[in-house]
């Protein structure tokens, strides 16, 4: 049943400002505010066997109450801006916001749409930005590691 893991070896741990607070343990609540799900596929891969972000202490949780922050994907659409604000309010402080993907960071290809309210920065200043359309799972993992310090 158990053979050797297929996980890629990890580089040295990167530095980050929030390491002291979330050293070794970071739970994130994923919020899709208007994504095409490309970033979600990459996030799933980041937590999958090959990249395995869990070994650095990061985990996705179901409730924002249980989370240390939000992992936001997609551009902020009008319909989801209210729920995003409620979700932000529902997280126990101290918290971080991770904007994942070009849409969350700068609007990406949906920038000029009538259904879009803005980027994540228009609602709350993200602590970590992960550029890319979609970002590579390694980039996602590195961003998480900058928060957990492992």
């Amino acid at each position, binding site marked *: 049943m158990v053979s050797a893991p297929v996980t890629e070896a990890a580089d040295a741990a990167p530095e980050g400002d929030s390491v002291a607070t979330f050293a070794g343990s970071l739970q994130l609540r994923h919020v899709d505010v208007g994504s095409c799900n490309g970033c979600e596929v990459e996030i799933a891969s980041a937590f999958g066997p090959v990249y395995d972000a869990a070994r650095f202490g990061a985990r996705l949780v179901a*409730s*924002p*109450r249980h989370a240390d922050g939000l992992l936001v994907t997609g551009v902020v659409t009008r319909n989801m801006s*209210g*729920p*995003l604000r*409620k*979700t932000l*309010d*529902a997280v126990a*402080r101290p918290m971080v916001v991770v904007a994942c993907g070009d849409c969350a960071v700068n609007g990406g290809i949906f920038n000029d749409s009538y259904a879009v309210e803005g980027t994540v920065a228009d609602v709350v200043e993200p602590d970590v930005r992960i550029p890319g359309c979609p970002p590579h799972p390694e980039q996602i993992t590195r961003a998480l590691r900058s928060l957990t310090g492992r």
Partner: protein
Amino acid sequence: MSATPRADHAGPAFTDRSLTVGLFLVALGLALAGAVAAIAFPGALRVPAAASFAAAASATALVASLEVMISGRTVVFHSMSVLPLTGLDLALDPLAATFIATAALVGVASSIYLIGYARGAMRSRTAVALFVVFLLSLLGVPAASSIATLMFFWEVMALSSMLLIIVEHRHHAAAREAAQWYGTITQVGAASILLGLLLLTLHGGGQTFADVAAHAPSLSPTVRSSAFVLVLLGFASKAGAVPLHVWLPKAHPEAPGPVSALMSGSMVAMGIYGIVRVGGDLLHGGTMWWWIAVVAFGVVSALYGALHATANSDLKRLLAYSTIDIMGLVLIGVGASGALAATGHPRVAQLSLVAALLLVVAHAAFKGCLFLAAGSIERATGTRDLDRLGGLIRGMPATATVFAIATFSIIAVPTLSGFSSEWLLLQGLLHGFVDHSAATLIALLLGVIALALTGGLTAVAFVKAFGIAFLGQARTATAADAREVAPSMLIATALLCVPSIVLGVVPGVVVPLLVRAADVGLARRGPPSIARGTGLALTGFRGVITPALLFVALGAAFALVWGLSALVARRKTRRLEAWGCGREVQTARMQYTATSFGEPLQRVFADVLRPDIDLEVTHESESKYYEQSLAYQNRVDDAMERSVYRPVIDVARRFGVAARRIQNGSIHRYLAFGFVALLVILVVLA
């Protein structure tokens, strides 16, 4: 008027036999005075005056019965002036005193409760007088020591409680139906009891209990068994044993608050008293099979009651089914005790009976408290339906606290009374396995299974009752506007929490008194199976718990965790909207209701509960693909009532309709009937 003591071991020096009897008679006299006050006093004075007399009567009776239980001696009283033909015979022995104390305990609280509760129809002369008379009869039934006295008080109890149920019938139409069922079943039961007791006086022998007990060994086993079966059926129906229980879930919810408390707390206990007195004391234990039958009643009642409690969302009906459940457990204890005594294990038998008696007392306290609190809820919100309540803890914090204590007690949270009594019952069953006869083993095994299963089911039912009624958001405007009830009602409800805590933390204080009562019930004097002390330590078996130490340990653990948390977790608490997945609007209707809470269990046990699920769809006239309205109904009726009683009633009704053909109004036919009947009698007499 005479008071003759029996020669017994020495007790406390200050007690004088005539003092105890005098106290008890004073209690009865005070109750009578209360009934008179109820009729004589005008409007505003009526209820406080009558209730004060009733409370004083109960308190006096409580003191008298405690005196008997502590000293262990029996006192008797006989008077020819009350019941002219047969005389009134009273005897207070430890067993009777236990049940009088139980009734008195609930009586004090109910009387005080009545002061704040009585409104409208409940303030009338009849209603208040009946209440006091009901209380009087509850004190009299265990004290009776002759068949006539017992039946006198029994009938007064039945009649007064039946009339009390229909006090508010103008507001609740269901009360009339409840009173009909109650009246019928209780009268049939009384007839059965009377018949059984009279069988014991066959071929001579007086009608006092002492005479019956002396005469019983000379009767044939068939007569004794038949008598026991008749008496068992009557008393078991009073105790709410399935399948004779159908009146209980109808009557207890419809009765006014304090009356429900008395009915559920002490009246059902009278059924248990009767079985122990007649089977154990008067008939000296009988054969093993009698008690196996009692255990069978108990197992079925416990499981049936617990299941139906989880499926009901009417608060008082839930409590009524829970009464059936606990009385089932008591019957298991009584039956196990009798069976073990009959097969020659007196020590375990005593243990089981003490456990059953402790459960009776504990149940009276916490069930009385729950019914009084339910009455308070009904006063404050106007409804008993859990699906319309919610968030009451904010408007009624005191009621919430006492309801919580009683709830934890009935769930058997450690260091409360329910836990102590169920532990003792389990010990009685467990150590009863020492017997080797297959029937007893199977009965005890079924008892253990019932005890285990009902523990879990009761937890579900009462988490539902407390959680849906008091916690979360209010589901209707009336629930949101609920305010705390009158102080007299609060004091009365809180009063009944005290025994729950005392019996839980220091059960060893009360249990030795129950050992003496159990000895009377087993008609033998044996070494106590439970040692003196604050906890419960079995002697002769390995088993001990010290709830007082557990209480201290739990308190210390709670303080430790709380202190550590305050030290380490320094951030302030933030109050905010509940997490609803970010949806814009969250309403009280999105919460779980009592029906939905119990629904998984209802589905699991659908074969037993047989819920009546119906979906009625009315389509739009233009197209059958559009619905105009939907009506969904999910009703859990009493399964026994639907599958057994109603068919029988239908058959009887059809028979009655068919029999009407005999009454066709023709004089000739009636004369012919009379003639034929006369002929038959002449032939038979010849």
